[in-house]
């Protein structure tokens, strides 16, 4: 879950810009991929030197406040649901037919062995609002001319990273490459975006990979198989009654 939200908080945008500030670039990049709402299906693939596992999920998101995630595969986890409403998170276990409220501390830890952190989920942090942005220069990523932007969290922001360097492509505002640093300035993770495709009328990278910097032979990938933006989802979709009956 933290994986998904971390991703939804980080990606892409359309739009053209001349003389815009680093913050404007990040805002444009942030807006498109997240949309006001999104509904998607995606595969999470965790790779380690000797094994790999896949999980497929369906997600519903509304802003930073509401999210529902339904696990479709593997068989033993099918039907498990995570519901996030503002600061609260519940987990529906179909086998037991009961929901379990998760401690807030659960949200700041790794989710199901993947290489992502989940601070964004509960902290509701935003790469636009919670960071100061500075344009460092230009580069080329996968043949696309890109801005290089440094993002440092504002003093009061409750975020997990000490710094993020992000490369945002100048034409389509896609976040193609990001480096995440801890409070000591040590690089923790590298994220790359691939397989840029049209989905629901928007050009987005459909495969994102996160690689821990100290374990280069392992990674977690998120592959979008379907995504829809800005279809209205009423806030009362994100309830425990819906969670129990989600299919």
């Amino acid at each position: 879950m933290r994986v998904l939200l971390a991703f939804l908080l980080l990606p892409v945008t359309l739009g053209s810009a001349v003389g815009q500030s680093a913050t404007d670039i990040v805002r444009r990049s942030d807006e498109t991929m997240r949309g006001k709402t999104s509904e998607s299906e995606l595969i999470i693939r965790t790779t380690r030197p000797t094994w790999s596992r896949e999980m497929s999920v369906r997600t519903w998101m509304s802003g930073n406040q509401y999210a529902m995630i339904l696990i479709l595969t593997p068989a033993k986890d099918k039907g498990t649901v995570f519901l996030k409403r503002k600061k609260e998170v519940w987990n529906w276990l179909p086998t037991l037919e009961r929901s379990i409220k998760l401690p807030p501390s659960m949200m700041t830890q790794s989710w199901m062995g993947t290489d992502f952190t989940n601070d964004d989920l509960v902290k509701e942090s935003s790469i636009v609002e919670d960071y100061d942005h500075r344009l460092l220069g230009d580069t080329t990523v996968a043949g696309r001319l890109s801005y290089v932007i440094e993002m440092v969290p504002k003093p009061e922001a409750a975020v997990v990273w000490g710094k993020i360097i992000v490369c945002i492509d100048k034409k389509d505002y896609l976040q193609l490459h990001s480096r995440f640093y801890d409070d000591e300035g040590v690089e923790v993770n590298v994220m790359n975006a691939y397989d840029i495709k049209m989905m629901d009328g928007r050009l987005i990278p459909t495969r994102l990979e996160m690689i821990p910097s100290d374990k280069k032979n392992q990674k977690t990938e998120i592959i979008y198989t379907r995504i829809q933006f800005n279809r209205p989802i009423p806030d009362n979709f994100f309830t425990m009654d819906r969670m129990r009956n989600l299919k």
Partner: protein
Amino acid sequence: MGRGRIIVFVVFLMTLGVSGAQTPDSAQTIPTWEVRGYLKDMQSLTYGQNPDSLVTGNMLHNRLNFRFNPSARFSAAAEFRTRLFWGQEVQLTPNFPEALRNRNEAVNLQWVWFETASAVMHTTVDRLWLEYRGQRWETRLGRQRINWGIATLWNPNDIFNTYNFLDFDYEERPGRDAAKVIFHLSDFSNLEVAGAAAEADYKSVASVRYTTNRWNYDFQFMAGVYQQVATAGFGWSGSIGEAGFKGEAQYFAAHSDTAALVNLAVEADYMFSKGWYVNAGFLLNSAGYSDPIDNWGLYNFQLSPRSLMPTKYNTVLTVGKEITPLLSANLTLIYSPGTNLVIALPSLRYNLGTNIDVDVFWQGFYAEQQKKIEPVVYRGFIRFKWSF
């Protein structure tokens, strides 16, 4: 319902539906049906202070869950739990099939396929229900689980179908023959009315529950009748800082030959970095024993909603650790001061393949006997599980 009728019901389910395609919630193909389940193989051993008392057990365990959605508003479920036991455990347990029976059921939906001196094959239908979901209310009729518990290990509010926390192999937990109606008062508050029948009328249970969410806490309040005894309870689930904080309390009034009693469970949990998880809790059973007891029948607690532990004060500490994404370890320690009862429950889980898990469980029971805390019984299990 006899076996024949169950089979007819299942065949009916299987012939009616279109295959269970996954579609968005908003545009679901109707009707749908689905079959899921698992196959488990479990080997067990049990021994007391004297290792010569070792008893081994073997079990093959199949679960089939059928779900049928004839329309967006109706659902039906039938779930079959079939187990084949063989070996010493069967040989040494008199009338083995009798011990498999869920005593809370009103209708006998179990059968023994065969029984020999050393093997028993047994099936029980532990879910068999029909559900209707309207805009403002929903109802479920038939054998179902009415899960009103909130806490992890001990659930005082779970007055319909208490489960034995030592029976780790029964993840789904037993059901009841019941009717339940939920009225949606608002997006986050419901009024629920449930009644469960039993073989004898005086053992039936009925209760009302109100659930709501305030100040980032879930709350529930309930009142009803448990086996002719008036009962009321409440529960909550929220957080203090970054830690989860949950609890349940249930009061049973005095009745002709029983005194009033209270069960109270409170727990806090926290997820640390690097995959460490800690959960600490306690249970008060005001009618429980508070002095050492000789001669425990330990691993066969007669648990009921009135008595979730035989002892008055009980504490529990669980520590979990995800060693790798595939391997996790868990240790639960229960200590009941007064009786000086200790239960240690370590376990390991390894994911061998996408749908195959192997688990190792250990259960050690210790209690004060003749002024010394001594081991009473040990149980060990290894289990392979294939989910489909």
